[in-house]
């Protein structure tokens, strides 16, 4: 009798109804959960990546390939230098390396036009290439280690690209750009747009470069060799396919010691090379 009274009471009915509604709602939410994604979307960013300019003298390299002058050249004229120092009469002209393989391009200072390609494990002038690191190659000879650096380092710790004549560039040589100018324009981006106007060039949905629409006469940008109508397609070997590509370079431009622009001008590729001092 007492139990029957309780089960018929309004409060119990209300609580029972709430429990049922809760159970149904929970079941529905679990069913919804089943169909929903379990992970979100994450944007990967490579903030530390800096697209540096690496000049490889392919013209010389190809001349030597034609002559069959490839690596493993042993013979006289080896220079012995102290352990851990740069090999005195050899120059490192270029580096290609992945985690497992790689090669370097070396020349003798006495005869820089005679370049050779040396793969890991191969010998050149008695030196065996044992490993390639960021800016240098390590050779072994007579159980001693020798380091050949790609670029010299000046007293300020700034990297310096050796001043070779750039046969492909508009001016036939590199153009100097001061760090002060770069610093000024990165801190005052509005000043950039007062001197130059750039817009994307699209092929359907894809960006294929950035066109110089306007350039102020007598401006810094004009002195860099850019012209109205140029389409910038590559910077430091990075193909510009999105705003992100361009902005990644813009954000790191202060850390770059050499800049190479490839522009399409009158349907021809023109390379503009700048050295940052």
């Amino acid at each position, binding site marked *: 009798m007492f139990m029957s009274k309780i089960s018929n009471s309004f409060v119990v009915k209300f609580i029972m109804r709430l429990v049922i*509604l*809760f159970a149904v709602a929970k079941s529905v939410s679990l069913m*919804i959960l089943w169909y929903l*994604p379990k992970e979100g979307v994450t*944007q990967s960013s490579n903030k530390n990546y800096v697209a540096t300019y690496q000049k490889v003298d392919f013209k010389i390299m190809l001349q030597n390939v034609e002559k069959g002058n490839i690596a493993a050249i042993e013979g006289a004229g080896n220079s012995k230098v102290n352990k851990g120092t740069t090999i005195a009469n050899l120059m490192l002209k270029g580096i290609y390396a992945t985690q497992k393989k790689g090669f370097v391009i070396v020349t003798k200072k006495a005869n820089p036009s005679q370049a050779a390609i040396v793969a890991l494990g191969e010998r050149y002038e008695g030196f065996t290439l044992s490993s390639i690191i960021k800016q240098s190659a390590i050779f072994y000879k007579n159980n001693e280690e020798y380091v050949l650096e790609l670029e010299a380092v000046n007293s300020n710790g700034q990297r310096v690209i050796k001043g070779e004549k750039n046969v492909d560039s508009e001016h036939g040589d590199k153009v100097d750009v001061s760090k002060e100018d770069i610093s000024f324009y990165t801190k005052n981006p509005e000043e950039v747009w007062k001197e130059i106007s750039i817009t994307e060039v699209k092929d359907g949905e894809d960006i294929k470069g950035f066109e110089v629409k306007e350039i102020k006469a007598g401006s810094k940008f004009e002195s860099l060799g850019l012209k109205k109508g140029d389409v910038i397609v590559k910077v430091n070997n990075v193909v510009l396919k999105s*705003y992100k590509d361009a902005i990644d370079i813009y954000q790191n431009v202060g850390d770059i010691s050499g800049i190479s622009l490839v522009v399409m001008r009158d349907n021809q590729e023109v390379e503009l090379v700048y050295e940052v001092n």
Partner: protein
Amino acid sequence: MKKIALFLLNIFVFTALMLYLLPKENLYYLLEQNLEKESLVFNNEKFKDKGLQFEVRDSVLFYKGIESAEIGKTRFDFFLLYNAVVFKGVKVSNIAQNFMPPYVNRVDFRYTIFDPLRIRGKARGEFGEADIFLHLLEKKIRVILLPSEIMLQKYKNSLKKFKKSEDGEYVYEQNI
């Protein structure tokens, strides 16, 4: 009459429970997947489910792969008849600072069933104040901007896409 009232009460309670129990974090992931199609990605979020509200803290917004803004707090309100998304403490990235001042105090978008064809938004920050209208049927966005002095002095270029009205407002319209 009593039965109808009871039925409506049941519906109301069930809806409230549903809104409370919804897997909001996973719904947010679904939203992220849809936003990714528009090249919008949020990173580094920390979530807090508060029942009828869902908070996302310290997110970083990327647009087309470019870091565009840091958002201190994003709040989603689910009240069925009235829903809102509120962004607070927005700092635009260095790149975006080329186009506008860095700090946006608050941006909110509100949708109510009583105005079903329109999402209304309001933004306030160093750039000034803006009213945003998203017309769902016409697929059109309309922004009415009242720019601040900083905006008028330093970011004139950004205002070029706006049409200036006689009362000093700047109006931007775009089909979406």
